[in-house]
């Protein structure tokens, strides 16, 4: 029953967030005017603002948020770790370092020029963090994964800084992208992002049953007839694709992937990934849109990047999770 009600509720939240994102900003537009402009067009200043500025921005927020929420849920399932998140695990900073490298080498601008570099960076970071954290006693514990991710993030950030100091042209392009913002992208970005998003999403969602079994432990999953390694690799690959495309489109936005799956689990009162994964995608989009809207209102003349707002929302969630009994063993 709860699960059935969760879907309409999530959809309503999403519609509300989209409406807010279209209506609120430096130039407030009444919701009905915004809707009208969206559906019928028009040439009034309000309609222009909505159609040319806010619609692309909302679309980027939607797709990046959905990708991050889904990736966070998948990573938590793969690592069997409640603290897993693209930001905490260092994937986002790895992808960011890849993008900076691409910008510095002049390999390409815009989404399709950088996404492969972002993907390579995220994959490298994932392998490194998981490989290092699973060495030693106790395997990949939450603490070791988080610390390895932090160390890698710091390293990638250092490398990024070095590249940026040596090339002012790269710095200029990178400056606003770095902190994670969904503004200033055109609608084409979303279109180009879709194939990656679809590939990653399908890969992750196809693994949902396997991930459910994985939650019972490797041995049980194997006994239930799942190929543990295949499931893990496929889900991790899908999550990395999602993170890379989100980072290439919107910059490293942290904590969406951490907070959302936990909220979803509480909402549906269960851990079945066939329900958690899609709902995480929807609520991830909601969270990122709301964070973006909040960033427009907090300091009126200028805008606070969405990544900053999600960090402010996500850290309390992290603290609560860490304090919970048995989270850190």
């Amino acid at each position: 029953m709860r699960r059935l009600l969760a879907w309409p509720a999530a959809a309503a939240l999403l519609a509300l967030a989209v409406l807010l994102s279209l209506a609120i900003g430096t130039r407030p537009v009444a919701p009905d005017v915004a809707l009208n402009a969206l559906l019928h067009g028009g040439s009034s200043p309000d309609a222009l603002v909505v159609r040319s500025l806010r619609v692309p921005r909302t679309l980027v927020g939607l797709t990046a948020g959905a990708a991050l929420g889904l990736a966070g849920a998948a990573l938590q399932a793969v690592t069997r770790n409640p603290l897993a998140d693209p930001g905490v695990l260092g994937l986002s900073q790895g992808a960011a370092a890849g993008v900076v490298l691409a910008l510095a080498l002049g390999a390409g601008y815009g989404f399709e020029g950088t996404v492969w570099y972002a993907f390579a960076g995220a994959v490298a970071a994932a392998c490194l963090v998981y490989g290092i954290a699973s060495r030693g006693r106790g395997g990949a514990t939450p603490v070791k994964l988080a610390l390895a991710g932090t160390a890698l993030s710091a390293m990638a950030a250092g490398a990024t800084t070095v590249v940026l100091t040596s090339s002012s042209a790269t710095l200029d392009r990178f400056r606003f992208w770095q902190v994670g913002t969904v503004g200033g992208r055109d609608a084409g970005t979303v279109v180009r992002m879709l194939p990656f998003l679809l590939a990653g999403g399908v890969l992750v969602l196809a693994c949902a049953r396997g991930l459910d079994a994985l939650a019972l432990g490797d041995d049980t999953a194997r006994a239930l007839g799942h190929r543990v390694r295949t499931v893990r690799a496929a889900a991790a690959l899908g999550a990395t694709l999602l993170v890379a495309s989100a980072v290439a489109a919107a910059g490293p936005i942290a904590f969406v992937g951490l907070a959302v799956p936990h909220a979803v689990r509480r909402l549906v009162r269960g851990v079945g990934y066939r329900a958690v994964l899609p709902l995480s995608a929807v609520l991830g989009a909601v969270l990122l849109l709301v964070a973006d809207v909040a960033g427009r209102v907090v300091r009126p003349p200028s805008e606070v990047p969405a990544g900053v707002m999600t960090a402010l929302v996500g850290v309390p969630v992290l603290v609560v999770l860490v304090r919970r009994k048995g989270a850190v063993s």
Partner: protein
Amino acid sequence: MTGDRRRDRTADGTATPQGRGELRDRPRRTRSTHTHTRTRTRTRTRETVLRPHPLLSLRLHRRSALVALALFGLTAAAMAASACLGRTLVPPDGAWRALWHGGTPYDLVVTELRVPRIVLGALVGAALGLAGALVQTVTRNPLASPDVIGVGHGAAAATVLALATGVTDSPGALPAVSVAGGLGAAALVHALAWRRGMQAGRFVLIGVGIGVALSAVVQLYLADSELDAAEQMKLWLTGSLDGRGWEQALPLAVVLAVCLPALVWAGWAARPLGLGDETAAGLGVRVDRTRLVLTVLGVVLAATATGAAGPIGFVALTAPQLARRLACTPHLPLLCSALTGAVVLVTADLAARTLLPPLEIPVGALTALVGGPYLLWLLGRGPRQT
């Protein structure tokens, strides 16, 4: 002064390094309790006891004294090299004369540009090394360091807030603000991580989270780019010694001097803590009080250093561990940690100035590039972590 050599007997493979230190502390008890169970596998003299007066005896760990001397020489060498190298090459004798007598063509470069930042770098490095050693001793965790548990971010956030809201615009008040911010952040992390006792993993994770939140607060203010202070803040936040000098070095030197007696006490009081809380309490140490004082001392030093040079990561993490490995002591040696920190930071600053000639890399980025792999290695090393 008479030298009294003491034989150190080491364990039969089961004693921990801390255990060995403990045995050295109390040789008489060692003899009475262990002679019949223990075979003497290895004997080596490690300590000299100085008795300048019949009532006073000082133990001297000879290797760490030698290492400290060597590190002192290394610091001096690094500082000298840093004074000579750069875009204008200054011959060593020219630098020397410019520093003490003046009247050379290098006066401006040496005395105005290089020496202040070298001195500041050495002081910041020493303060960070000390802070790292203190915090790691208290938490008994090589992964804990002031910047991992959010002190640096707290100091940064407080400084940025103070600059942005115009509470203070005099540079003299900034160290106080950053110390307050660092202490506040450490207290917050401590309070949030406390749940029927303290657990190292929880402490570090919450510290990392609070650090992220505080840097988000900083970003919040930086986004307001029309602010005059924004440029100043950005400069400060890169963690660089560029453009800093006496003005920042002086408050730091004062804080270090004020903390010196406390540090001497800490060097003596910190050792029993390494044995574990129960053992230390059994030896008559007031564990909670000592830990509190050591933590506050470490946080004050780290926050002052951050206030002077901006957030420079990983020096506080790596310097004590390097120093311990160099000095081969069971505890984290404070003096050696300070000197190692100074060497690391002066060298990193020299590299940051000279690696990409026309430009200057923020030294914080460089230390992160070197320190990140070290932290990863520490994590992947196996049985002894966390």
